[in-house]
């Protein structure tokens, strides 16, 4: 529909366009000024999941509003902007300007949840860092597949820490700042302990006598502290 079509519509529906005589008004309230009508159309089009038809807009706006005219105004207001008012099938919708489509490309990410192996490994690294591969395997009770570490590395959530000063000088893993950022933590110390999880109702299992807060353990290990300063 072109603006001229809209104008034609106007003419057809002229009796309900801003009646000058209040007695002509079919509603109880005075018709809002055109600026207001424009705001209303703008808000509805913005918030709608689907394009909205003129008829639907007319139904949603107060009686006496001239939706078609409001659209003409709104359309010209958005012309040349980063977002346009476009006709889609039978309705109207707001769409990113075609020349800026390249800006949207980073939005096309498919979100997939981490595998159980990955999240458990990540959790162990977060709570026990710096931790060696052998220790991770010991805690999980299964061999650590290469893919798991690779995936966590690729996500930028873990990195190599310093080598452990034990025979074989094994590499250790630690979590990164990107990890903290993603999980909304300020420091690795802010990870809640098992006891705290239980208290917060985030853990269903029953309380175990003598259960330790893992973060308490951390404190006893002087080796742990250095890392937090990285």
């Amino acid at each position, binding site marked *: 529909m072109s603006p001229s079509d809209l104008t034609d519509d106007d003419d057809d529906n002229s009796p309900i366009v801003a009646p000058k005589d209040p007695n002509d008004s079919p509603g109880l309230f005075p018709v809002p000024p055109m600026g207001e009508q424009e705001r209303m159309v703008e808000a509805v089009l913005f918030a709608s999941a689907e394009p909205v038809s003129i008829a639907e807009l007319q139904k949603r706006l107060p009686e006496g509003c001239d939706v078609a005219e409001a659209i003409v105004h709104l359309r010209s207001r958005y012309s040349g902007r980063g977002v346009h008012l476009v006709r889609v099938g039978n309705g109207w919708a707001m769409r990113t300007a075609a020349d800026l489509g390249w800006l949207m490309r980073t939005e*096309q990410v498919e979100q997939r949840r981490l595998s159980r192996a*990955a999240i*458990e490994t990540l959790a162990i690294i*977060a709570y026990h860092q710096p931790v060696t591969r052998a220790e991770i395997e010991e805690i999980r009770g299964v061999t650590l597949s290469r893919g798991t570490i690779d995936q966590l590395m690729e996500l930028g959530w873990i990195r190599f820490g310093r080598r452990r000063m034990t025979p074989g000088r094994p590499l250790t893993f630690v979590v990164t700042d990107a990890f903290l950022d993603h999980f909304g933590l300020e420091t690795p110390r802010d990870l809640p302990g098992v006891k705290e999880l239980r208290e917060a109702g*985030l853990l269903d299992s029953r309380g175990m006598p003598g259960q330790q807060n893992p973060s308490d353990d951390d404190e006893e290990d002087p080796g742990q502290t250095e890392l937090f300063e990285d």
Partner: protein
Amino acid sequence: MSEAETQQGDAIAARLDDEALIVDVDGFEGPLDLLLTLSRRQKVDLRRISVLQLSEQYLRFVEAARELRIELAADYLVMAAWLAFLKSRLLLPPDPTEEGPSAEDLAAHLAFQLERLEAMREAAGRLMGRDRLGREFFGRGAPETHAIEKRTQHTATLLELVQAYARLRTKDDFRPYAFDRTDIFPLETALERLRGMIGEAVTWSDLASFLPPGWRAAGGRRRSALASTFAASLEMAKQGQLDIQQGETFAPIRVRLRPQEAR
């Protein structure tokens, strides 16, 4: 109306009042909430509340609840005990030898707690009364995602992370009880070793010479290996395979292969 009648009327009114509260006892969010409700009856600014009067009202409420055999949660009874204590402190002249905060300080703190709780209630009300996303204002209904470039992004929430960890930890906690044996030289191993070596011991040899390498230095490992090797030698003596000899108490224990003719 006579004075007696008035009194009776007051008593009934008070009782009805209290009953109204009792019926609602489940509706209270703890003793502080109840105190706040009671304090509103004083119809004064919370800063000028009579804590004494409030304590009395609270104690009367608890008493009435008891009479009606309504079971009050322990919190309510703890508060009652504390208020009874506070009330007595407020009524008695201050004891200069008494240490700690004065009754007035305690009363002032209670008033502060009530004021703060009420302030938070009001704040909560104002917060919930605000224009809210999805109710008064809205985000983009049709967020644009041109599906051109697909990139897989793995996500995880902190909740998932900590739950995974908790799962691991809990698994550990349910592990059947087992003694973590390190530095223990098992009897079976000692027996095996001794059986293999005894053939060489045709003459008397110090039992300690049968200890495996790495277990000979003084300490826990040596003790464990020595005990196991000794127990193994007893077992073999019982089976008639070796002889044991000790010159005197605490002297070294010596063993040898039992001569063929003695078997």
